[in-house]
């Protein structure tokens, strides 16, 4: 009888772990599992090299202190929790900041072509929410470069043989088996609620299959598509996280959605212009004259209103993202400033490009970002200030995951509790978890949290696997067959939706959902509107039940419209979690902002509490019950650093606006 931890079953089947999602979080988890000797099945919606991590532009934070500024991992930790308005549990954030320099060194060893100093060391740039040069970068496509490095390491594991417990090669079995173009359809949970595997669908032919796994990780990214157009890749529907939520996993802090201040508006997606542009000296402004219709480059310096620099003289254009987004939103929407008459502000690097050497320096550091503007907006950003507006960018919320605190107050390495969801045996990492960013994520912390999450998740899964009395591979096949059958039937029912009863086009329904969420659940939130959103979501869920399979006869082949029905179902479920969380949270914190509760707007209203630590220093926990979310709350671990006012040195009031007097003095942060 083979030992429970052995690699092979008696019938010579390889006992594997499962990772769903091949972005940075998933790939790092795979590498750590392989290093622990555990073979992996890696499932991904797209070839892993095309995962959303490629979109991250600016860089990855690590306090290496290359510039001798006195930066330290502890400062990075503190700025991370402060940037998150103290809603993040502190021990995991401490663990992340401490691990960051080692992570960047590891990536460097893997061959990431990071930018260099003249001495050949890693170069670091500035990002929002800090005064230090802390962000390592590879041109302006850092996420792409990091993803490629991990992809290459995992490809290496695709060539390495599985060895049995005596070190003998198992013929034909490699450490990593990739299943690309596969979509998660369900989790296999045993009678005690333990996750024993998944059911997934091959998108090339529609075939479903159950996978056994001695620990399962979801690293499936954020739900940006809930908002229709965002900076996210079109694959980021949150479908896998929604499936886990509907099967019992807790979804935490859903209401915290980061809106990035600077994106290019367009019809299919809102393309990000990285914060690194401001880190390298880019300035945000609007024409002082609200009626000015001239091209940005024709407006003289004296007629420009650099509102971020005036309001925040210390951090200037590098205030955290929630603040920058709110200031741009207010300046354009409420105060009526515009760029060439459009609802936009300018992000400007032209002052850095006046000389040939200046232009070449900007090109070296920002070419990849500026190229996006040139390609998609059709104007040369070296000559023209770029027109930008805030866009939905990142979900701080996600699947709730646990952590174990060590004796030093940081994360305890190797604990099976780390990154474990509320479903035993199911882990989550990357943007699909909620752990590291609190109420607002600092720029260049996402690549870090994905990789750190993976570094923690792999060993946690290994520890979990070791502690199980019975392997998933020794369970009766009935368990797997029944979930498989359920999901096959579910898909068949979706695929047969045709005829008069199914009159709704799912893509039109998605467009309606996105427009509503974008207008009412992003930068500014009003209770009455959120009530309307929650009511409309009930209506949209009813419409989803009438949504047609637009390609009902296509069987055994690619059928994107039918698969989209499954993803749309997930988006509706998560939209409700997000909107319900926002409605019920009666405070302003990080990305969650209700003008009615802003004491600067309403100095005499006792209900305008701003951030309310006494009542709301709590993680929102959503569970799926019956038809929708039920919310509970749990305390945040703030055991390392006391709470402080989240102050980025705002001075003065915003300019008074005719007809908007009540909104003057915008900003929830106290004046100095």
């Amino acid at each position, binding site marked *: 009888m083979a030992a429970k931890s052995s690699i092979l079953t008696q019938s010579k089947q390889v006992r594997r772990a499962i990772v769903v999602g091949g972005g940075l979080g998933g790939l790092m988890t795979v*590498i750590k599992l392989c290093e622990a000797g555990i073979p992996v099945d890696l499932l991904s919606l797209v070839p892993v090299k095309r995962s959303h991590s490629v979109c991250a532009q600016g860089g990855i934070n690590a306090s290496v202190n290359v510039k001798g500024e006195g930066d330290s991992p502890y400062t990075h930790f503190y700025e991370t929790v402060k940037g998150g308005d103290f809603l993040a549990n502190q021990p995991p954030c401490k663990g992340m900041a401490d691990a960051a320099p080692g992570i960047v060194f590891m990536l460097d060893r893997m061959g990431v072509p990071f930018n260099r*100093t003249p001495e*050949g060391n890693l170069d670091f740039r500035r990002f929002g929410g800090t005064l230090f040069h802390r962000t390592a970068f590879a041109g302006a496509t850092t996420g792409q470069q990091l993803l490629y490095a991990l992809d290459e390491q995992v490809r290496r594991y695709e060539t390495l043989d599985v060895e049995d417990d005596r070190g003998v090669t198992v013929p034909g079995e490699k450490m990593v088996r990739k299943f690309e173009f596969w979509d998660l359809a369900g989790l296999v949970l045993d009678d005690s609620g333990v996750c024993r595997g998944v059911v997934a669908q091959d998108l090339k032919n529609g075939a479903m299959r159950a996978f056994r796994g001695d620990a399962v990780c979801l690293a499936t990214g954020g739900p940006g598509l809930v908002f229709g157009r965002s900076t996210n890749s079109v694959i980021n529907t949150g479908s896998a996280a929604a499936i886990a939520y509907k099967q019992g996993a807790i979804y935490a802090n859903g209401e915290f959605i980061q809106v990035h201040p600077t994106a290019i508006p367009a019809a299919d997606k809102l393309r990000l212009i990285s914060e690194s542009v401001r880190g390298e000296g880019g300035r945000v402004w609007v024409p002082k004259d609200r009626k000015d219709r001239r091209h940005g480059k024709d407006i003289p310096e004296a007629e420009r209103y650099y509102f971020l620099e005036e309001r925040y003289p210390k951090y200037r254009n590098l205030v955290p993202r929630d603040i920058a987004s709110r200031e741009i939103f207010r300046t354009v929407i409420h105060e009526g400033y515009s760029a060439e008459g459009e609802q936009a502000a300018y992000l400007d690097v032209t002052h850095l490009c006046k000389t040939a050497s200046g232009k070449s320096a900007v090109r070296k550091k920002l070419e990849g970002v500026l190229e996006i503007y040139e390609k998609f907006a059709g104007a040369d950003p070296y000559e023209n200030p770029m027109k930008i507006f805030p866009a939905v960018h990142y979900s701080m919320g996600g699947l709730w995951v646990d952590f174990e605190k060590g004796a030093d107050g940081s994360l305890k390495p190797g604990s099976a509790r780390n990154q474990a969801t509320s479903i035993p045996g199911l882990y989550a990492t990357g943007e699909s978890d909620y752990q590291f960013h609190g109420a607002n994520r600092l720029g260049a912390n996402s690549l870090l949290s994905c990789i750190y999450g993976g570094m923690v998740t792999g060993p946690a899964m290994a520890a979990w696997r070791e502690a199980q009395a019975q392997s998933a591979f020794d369970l009766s096949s009935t368990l797997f067959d029944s979930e498989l059958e359920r999901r096959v039937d579910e898909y068949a029912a979706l695929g047969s939706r045709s005829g008069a009863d199914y009159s709704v086009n799912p893509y039109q329904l998605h467009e309606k959902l996105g427009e509503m969420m974008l207008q009412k659940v992003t930068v500014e939130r009003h209770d009455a509107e959120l009530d309307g959103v929650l009511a409309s979501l009930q209506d949209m869920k009813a419409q989803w039940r009438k949504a047609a399979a637009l390609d009902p006869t296509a069987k055994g082949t690619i059928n994107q419209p039918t698969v989209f029905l499954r993803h749309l179902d997930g988006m509706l479920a998560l939209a409700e979690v997000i909107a319900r969380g926002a409605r019920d949270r009666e405070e302003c914190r990080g990305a969650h902002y209700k003008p009615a509760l802003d004491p600067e707007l309403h100095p005499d209203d006792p209900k305008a509490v701003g951030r309310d630590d006494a009542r709301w220093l709590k993680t929102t926990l959503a569970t799926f019950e019956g038809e929708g979310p039920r919310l509970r709350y749990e305390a945040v671990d703030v055991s390392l650093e006391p709470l402080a006012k989240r102050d980025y040195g705002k001075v003065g009031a915003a300019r008074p606006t005719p007809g908007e007097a009540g909104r003057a003095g915008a900003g929830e942060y106290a004046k100095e």
Partner: protein
Amino acid sequence: MATDTVTLKIKRGESGGASRWEEFKVPRKPMMNVISCLMEIQKRPVTVDGRGTTPVNWESSCLEEVCGACTMVINGRVRQACSALVKDLSPKGEPITLEPMTKFPRERDLVVNRQRMFDALRATRAWIEIDGSHQLGPGPKVSQDDQEVMYPLSRCMTCGCCVEACPNYNDRSDFMGPQVISLTRLYNMHPSGRMQAGGRLDALMGAGGISDCGKAQNCVQVCPKGIPLTESISVMGRETIKRALFGWLLKG
């Protein structure tokens, strides 16, 4: 004179089956690209002659030309659909044609199977060997000059434009394509990657390797990232010749 609609002619079909053309008209919007046209067809899958049809299947992910997914042949030229702007393709309302890439087996409509490119990355051991992901201190120092050569090479998305344009890449040849040759140059330049340079060169000297390049130079014309593919091919050509002539001396 621009019109208020965009006309698309799309080559559709099943895996291994015959192709058919379908024509669509979608509303024209500012800053529209080919992807947003396809999204309009999803919302109203009706051909230009009013016949109901199915939404077109295509591959896409990032929509900002860093993932390589949405590569297809647009107006006869291979490129990413996301960065193909309607205003450039159809300034006066000319029809836009969309076809799947021809060098890979079609899966359905505009989706093709590009696995062959990823297999080539495995075959050439396209990675840096590391001793593990645990802490081993900083990586090797790299000069700014070397970084400036390496970074552009590292932007290859494995999108397939170069091999689509390459006359020597097809289902009758084993040629791995210019993208693999260029990536081999990247790994062989890296201070620790260099330690395994010989093995990668051997792969390039084997079947489907660099000698299958016919020097048509089409690849560099179509690379969306402007990667100096022909320069890489000539650099690696010299390296493989050196190894062929003197490699036996070094093997010891």
